[in-house]
């Protein structure tokens, strides 16, 4: 029995090949040099081409592979992304304590059921702890709190 084309595997392999072509293309913009004195572009072109070829081999090998559709739940992904962005933006403007609270609260939304009390307690403990350890203790040059 022949199996249907495994779209997911082929897509991943195609992304790999595209990445390889991109690396080789950017690399070819630097001087390639001659074989006795390879320039800064020589190695990147080789690496890019090797990646592109391996992408092709994977597509060929996994064309009809029976691997299941990858499991990529959206919720943890969104929660953690929001947490990271919030941490970066808030910490730069308002300091480490609000940044930490933003990260902890948003990333906690990734798991259900929501536990508001536990999350709030964790956010406060971690914010104070991080300020003490990293700013007071290790002297990382970021404000604790500012507005």
């Amino acid at each position, binding site marked *: 029995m022949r199996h249907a084309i495994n779209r*997911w595997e082929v897509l*991943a392999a195609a992304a*790999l090949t595209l*990445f*390889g072509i991109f690396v080789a293309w*950017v*690399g070819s913009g*630097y*001087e390639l040099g001659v*074989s*006795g*004195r*390879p*320039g*800064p572009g020589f*190695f*990147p072109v080789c690496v*890019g081409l090797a*990646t592109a070829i*391996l*992408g092709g*081999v*994977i597509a060929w*090998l996994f064309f009809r592979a029976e*691997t299941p559709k*990858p*499991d*990529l*739940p959206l*919720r*943890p*992904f969104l*929660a*953690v*992304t929001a*947490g*990271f962005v919030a*941490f*970066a933006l808030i*910490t*730069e403007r308002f300091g*480490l304590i609000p940044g*930490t609270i933003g*990260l*902890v609260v948003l*990333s*906690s939304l*990734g*798991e*259900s059921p929501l*536990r508001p009390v*536990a*999350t709030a307690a*964790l*956010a406060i403990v*971690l914010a104070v702890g*991080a300020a003490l350890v*990293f700013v007071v203790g290790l002297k*990382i040059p*970021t404000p604790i709190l500012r507005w």
Partner: protein
Amino acid sequence: MDLLANLASGFQIALRPDALLFCFVGVSIGTLVGLLPGIGPIAAISMALPLTFYFDPTVALIMLAGIFYGAQYGGSIASVLLNIPGDAPAAVTCLDGYPLTKQGRAGLALFVSAISSFLGGSFAILVLMGLAPTVAAIALKFGPVEYFSIMLLGLIAGSTLSVGSPVKGLAMVTVGIAIGLSGVDVDSGRARFTFDLALLRDGVNLVALATGLFGVAEILNNIGKNAAVTLTAKSVSLRSMIPSYAEMRLVWLPTLRGAVIGSIAGSLPGTGPTIASFMAYATEKRTAKDPSRFGRGAIEGVAAPESANNAAVQAGFIPTLSLGIPGDGVMAVIMGALMIHGIAPGPQFIAENPGMFWGLVASFWIGNVMLLILNIPLIGVWVRILAVPYYLLYPSMLLFICVGVYSINNNMFDVYFVLLFGVLGYFMLAFGYPAAPLLLGFILGPLMEEYLRRALLISGGDFTVFVLHPISATALLAGVAVLLIPLRGYLRARWLEHGTS
């Protein structure tokens, strides 16, 4: 004797109060992350790395190494008690460790696993002490041609011998090398793949890459999947741990065999603790008088793999410290950490930094004794930590990653890079692409480019030097052989498929 004098000088360094303290911190963190599913030694070492910038390099190395071997002890606790491997090498320990727990003999399984880990580790430290300086002395004669070929062999072995698809592993190596290209080229002074970002002039940050691929990706993958933990053995009494004389007699030979297998696997490129523990288990099952006992609580099935994975971890320092070629992802991060501290691992490493090398070796002994104490009398503490729920754990880990990565350059861009690599790692996990080879390629890529250029410069552009130098040719042949192993299996499967249909 030379060896003893060296070791004595090493103990003088490793017994300094700061070295002792951070050795203890390292093995404790290691046990903790080994214990907790969803966070492994690579994530933990790269998270701790920014903290060690404040330390003396020897102390930093002692602590980071402690996390690595500590994790092997911790990994078995979760395997035995919960049937959940804390990390990959401990998966084998579940097979017989958990059945022992169900029979009410968890204490025995934990005791044997700690003792076997200790003995396996000790055996490999002896091998390390004897072998590393010798290998380094031989490697001093290697030129760029030999280095390039040996690194190529290391990358091929490291990516194809691990778990998962060999081709996908190879592809991840080249992606890792490509990511490592970013930054100012040492040779020409040209900025490559920096996309006009000032931050990328020094290249992609190792900590951002490793915490993203191994920390954030694992967290993304684990959120929502952790069912409530139910402990079969609520507490483990010290009395229940002491084995009988008959049980001790059953265990010592498997432990020794595991130590030998682990030491060999650890010192070879590409075969790390995971493969070592699988091989040790398979060997015990094959040589046993009654193989059917395995999987139902055979104590040898705990002793051999535990001894082997610890031996492999300690022996893994041989190629890294004497050749500058890490065998797996964890050693790649440790080597990256050394380079960040301004120390180049390679054949000169032991000769130029004898204090650091022998101090590290001495700290292995001290750390393993600490782990024995942490794992036998203090086992109850770890059992309680296993019950900490994931919804408290993962935001804490994310915070630690964010602050740690930010502190390196005081640049928020690094935090976005962690997220980027975390998402990449999440997709890689879902599609079955292994992340450790990417890290190996990232660390070794820039070195390989340098050696390739030098080799071609010396030979005047003649590529045949790689096959005409005997050591280089041997390494390349071995690389081809490693590539052919999976190919043979694949062709055979194809042939069988066509034969039957």
